[in-house]
């Protein structure tokens, strides 16, 4: 069954419906993602989740909210950023729902919309990771940590000094980033892939300008609502 044909319970506002469509597009690249419609709300996911105690919305509620059509609450939740991606929920779900992959799709959508919970730097870590990796083709961990903490929490750099020194003493820190030979080739691949990922973005841009649709959850309106 195609994802577009999933029956949507209840009538949705234009904003929510658009959000759902965009979300379902994100899900297209997850095999068997249409199983999301067969959730029986048993709560196995929440019970299996090692971090659900720290979430504002539990994994079970995430699925329920999606089915009820409340994408805005989902995208603004802290829960999607707390997920440690351990896949316990996904392997135990009796309805075979790809819970973790769905949370990834929600993260991607939230990042596209520029919605992040305050002081919760998962997206910064991802972005720094990508930026370091794009420069060298490989990840240089010390550089990742320094750049990430400079952006988010510079004082923690001092907190990590003792550990860094111990690691340096044991020859566990590579000072010079290793770089791949065909960085140009990799960059070409990334550039092309970026174009492939672009359609979502282009599609949404027109809504961002208007007062309806995505405008309702754009970065500006979110910031305004928090004032």
């Amino acid at each position, binding site marked *: 069954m195609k994802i577009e044909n999933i029956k949507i319970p209840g009538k949705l506002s234009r904003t929510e419906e658009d959000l759902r469509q965009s979300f379902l597009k994100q899900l297209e690249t997850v095999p068997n993602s249409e199983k999301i419609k067969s959730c029986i709300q048993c709560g196995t996911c929440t019970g299996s989740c090692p971090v659900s105690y720290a979430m504002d919305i539990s994994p079970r509620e995430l699925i329920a909210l999606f089915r009820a059509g409340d994408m805005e609450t989902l995208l603004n939740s802290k829960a999607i950023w707390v997920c440690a991606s351990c896949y316990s929920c996904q*392997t135990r779900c009796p309805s075979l729902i790809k819970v973790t992959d769905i949370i990834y799709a929600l993260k991607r959508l939230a*990042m596209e919309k520029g919605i992040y919970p305050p002081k919760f730097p998962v997206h910064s870590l991802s972005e720094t990771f990508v930026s370091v990796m794009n420069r060298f*083709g490989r990840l240089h961990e010390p550089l990742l940590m320094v750049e990430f903490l400079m952006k988010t929490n510079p004082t923690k750099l001092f907190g990590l000094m003792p550990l860094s020194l111990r690691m340096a003493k044991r020859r566990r820190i590579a000072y010079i980033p290793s770089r791949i030979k065909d960085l140009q080739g990799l960059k070409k691949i990334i550039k092309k892939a970026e174009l*492939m990922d672009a359609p979502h973005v282009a599609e949404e841009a027109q809504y961002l300008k208007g007062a309806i649709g995505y405008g309702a959850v754009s970065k500006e309106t979110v910031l305004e609502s928090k004032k």
Partner: protein
Amino acid sequence: MDYTYYPGCSLESAHSSYSDSVKSVFKYLGSNLIELEDWNCCGATAYMSVKETMSFAISARNLALAEKHDRDVVAPCSACFTILSKTNRYLKELPEFHEKVNECLKEGGLTYNLTVKVRHPLEVLINDIGLETIKAKVKHPLDGLKIANYYGCQIVRPEKGFDDRENPMTMDNLFEVLGATNVYYPFKVKCCGGMLMTTYEDVALKLSKEIIASAVENGADCIVTTCPLCQMNLEGYQGLINKKYNTNYNMPILFFTQVLGLAFGLNEKELGIDKNLTESIKFNGSLINR
């Protein structure tokens, strides 16, 4: 037998001890690990949450490079192993997506025809080399060593891998053959917090603490793992855990290949044990100090 070796970024720096020990153990057993030329970062979980096609395309570049040789890929890092396997399976299951990713690869002068097999060294040891052969090569049996086998998340989930997702036994079976005692360890597949250690430390410290506490409670001499990130969280952050929870843990966290190498009589340098942060490990009833 020869394998294509995919070390991954972490094994180049902070966890070169893992790489050292994997290479030494394979060499000792007569298998060659030939490093994949010009491999790039697999993307790990961080990349997955940014852009979808891109994350699969960069991961697939490695598979395309590996396809030039008629060898299986061995990836010791749990994250690399999962991401490369996941990419492989998604490209097989979604032909349209495979086409899309191949279009990207073409820009870099590559194509991927889905023929590569991605494998974890633990599974290779058990299935290709075999417990009998391994047993025959033991020089110092692990008699008396009490091990908490910690598999972590990524090699048993989410892919239907080589072992059970709830109660994996490959490592237990391996160390049993070597003479060690596997302690009861209900935390063997629990999450250590992963990257949350950098973004949400409170939660990750709690998860890691529980993993160490359970091993202590069950009388383990060491925790043995397959994952670099787990090793870092449990070993590197043990001091912070002690500080936060007012505990006094001094639990050695070893890679499974390091323990295996000790049984083969390989020295600490070959196994990268001199790079571990904990001060001593118990072996054959005596302490190895560095």
